[in-house]
């Protein structure tokens, strides 16, 4: 069976921006905020990452600057939501709206082009072949030979886990979502942790978004196409734990990779595939509500 391997390989690739976005979203979710701005933040990272790389000629610098810009945006979001006490969903929408407009405006301003912008002379993503891993039959082909980003994201996932479960910060963050009054009664301000959670989501989305565009060496309007929403589903399906995120992200990536194949080979309309993230999220949300309601009624 020759064809599964390319699908598995591309799944790992596809999974990475999703995993990164969901990692950041996990922090905000654990602090009790439903962060739908992941979509906009990813797009911001995608745009800034590729544009800064083009201008500076260095991928590292470009990505870092892109992350910085995305974190700045998430800081604005955090200020308006947490400090100015706004509805988190509406401000998230505002971010998404802002970024989709801003990227087009800037593309037009800088490159006189509102569509796909291809950048010449872009450095290629450094690909790593992991020595021992590459030799294992199926897994090796799946896991080795990826851009360095991907291995970085796995490292970050481990750091995520460490921070959440092995540092005081992680405990206080989780307490912010579970019982903010308990924190306040000890003199700790939950708002501080919510703010930092937003910044973290800016960081991970900045990195994840950059991967999307640097993979292509071009910026495509709306390249994120719902990935921010799937990141939320990944968080819920992964039971809000880092390891679960990995599994859920992989599942979605496999589905995505398969559907790319299916679109060519099986002729399913593109729109249906694009609608899947939203349908999935909807079903997951309803499922969770039913589950929560049943749990509630048993308890009372």
């Amino acid at each position: 069976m020759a064809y599964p391997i390319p699908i598995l390989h591309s799944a790992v690739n596809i999974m990475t921006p999703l995993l990164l976005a969901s990692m950041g979203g996990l922090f905000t979710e654990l602090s009790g905020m439903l962060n739908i701005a992941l979509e906009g933040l990813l797009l911001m990272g995608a745009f800034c990452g590729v544009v800064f790389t083009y201008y500076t000629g260095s991928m590292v610098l470009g990505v870092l600057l892109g992350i910085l810009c995305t974190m700045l945006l998430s800081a604005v979001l955090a200020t308006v939501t947490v400090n100015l006490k706004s509805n988190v969903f509406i401000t998230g929408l505002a971010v998404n709206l802002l970024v989709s407009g801003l990227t087009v405006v800037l593309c037009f301003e800088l490159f006189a082009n509102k569509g796909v912008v291809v950048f010449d002379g872009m450095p290629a993503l450094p690909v790593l072949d992991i020595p021992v891993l590459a030799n294992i039959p199926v897994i090796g082909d799946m896991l080795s030979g990826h851009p360095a980003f991907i291995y970085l994201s796995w490292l970050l996932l481990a750091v995520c886990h460490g921070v959440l479960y092995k540092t005081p910060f992680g405990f206080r963050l989780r307490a912010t979502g579970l019982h903010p009054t308990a924190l306040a009664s000890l003199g700790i301000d939950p708002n501080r942790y919510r703010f930092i959670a937003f910044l973290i989501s800016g960081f991970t989305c900045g990195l994840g978004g950059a991967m999307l565009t640097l993979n292509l060496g071009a910026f495509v309007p709306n390249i994120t196409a719902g990935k921010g929403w799937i990141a939320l589903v990944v968080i819920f399906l992964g039971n809000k734990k880092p390891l679960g995120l990995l599994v859920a992200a992989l599942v979605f990536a496999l589905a995505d990779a398969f559907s790319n194949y299916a679109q060519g080979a099986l002729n399913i309309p593109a729109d249906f595939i694009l609608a899947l993230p939203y349908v999935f999220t909807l079903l997951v949300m309803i499922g969770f509500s039913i589950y929560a309601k049943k749990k509630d009624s048993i308890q009372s």
Partner: protein
Amino acid sequence: MADTQRHPRVSALVRDSAGILLIIAIALAALVILAFLLSKTPGKTLWYFFFGPLQNTYYFGNMLNSAIPLIFGGLGVSLAMRSDNFNLGGEGQIYSGAFTATICAIQLAPLGIPGAVLALLAGALVAGFLGGLSGYFRMKWDTSELITSFLISNGVVLMVNYLIAGPFMDTSTNLIATQKIPEAFHLPLILPPSNLSSALFLAVVAVFCVHFYLFKTKMGYELRMSGLNRQFARYGGIDTKLYMVLPMFLSGALYGLGGGIAIYGTYFSCMKEFSTGMGWNGLAVALIAKFKPSAVIPAALFFAYIEAGSRNAMLHSDVTFEIASIVQSVVFFLVTSEVLQRVFGKKGDR
């Protein structure tokens, strides 16, 4: 306190408007900054932005015309919000309502005007069903209607896209659109050469109807009490479960009606993604109007003005139309801030 009691309505109005005016001022300030940053001729850009839509009947009429779907959307969201429901599914509701109305209008052509009305109602019904579905999920399982309406809307938009580009496409034109509705169904233009149609009157009628429903009928009263204090409403014997679903249904229906009327008045066939952004603007209109039907018209005009100004600036200057979304996002950012709202509410607080 004595002051407030002497002119309670006026001072309340001033307090409410002050917050909104501040937000609008900030949004326009952002626009000015953008013009200076992005345009090589900021003065010209700003002139065309602020005065372009007003300079002749064509631009002015078009601006008024684009406010019409926003009025319907704003009414819809306001109605839902009064019952403490957030309808974020406007994009899908307006689009699916327009599509359904178009297809039905084509099919019901032989019935004449009654057919036209039926087709509009069919569009409203489909869109209302989508809204009502979110309300139902909330009533049954406490699922956030805010999120479900948004998700359903996104899925529906893609579905309608598929239908228009696929089975329902009119292959005789180069556009990705359905066939045209019968000529007899077109609404008359009232301000040529612009495309402002008599739909404007329908919009104003809709404002009256919603205002009447909310403030002068028993059902409107029950709806509002359910929204203000659900426990109190239940205590008084109101069927609060009904008012979790019905307002969402009506809200979607208003959006769908707006979509159908847009087709009858301006577009005449359902083009792919013709209504993109109307749903969000409807939401923004409702937020600015603070969910008061009477304030929806000025709020809708404001938004239509922003878009018309952007378009004008784009045509005559060197900026792109998307600055409108940047200005709109500033409004979205600030309009739900409790802190900003309280800044003007502090004096004479109760």
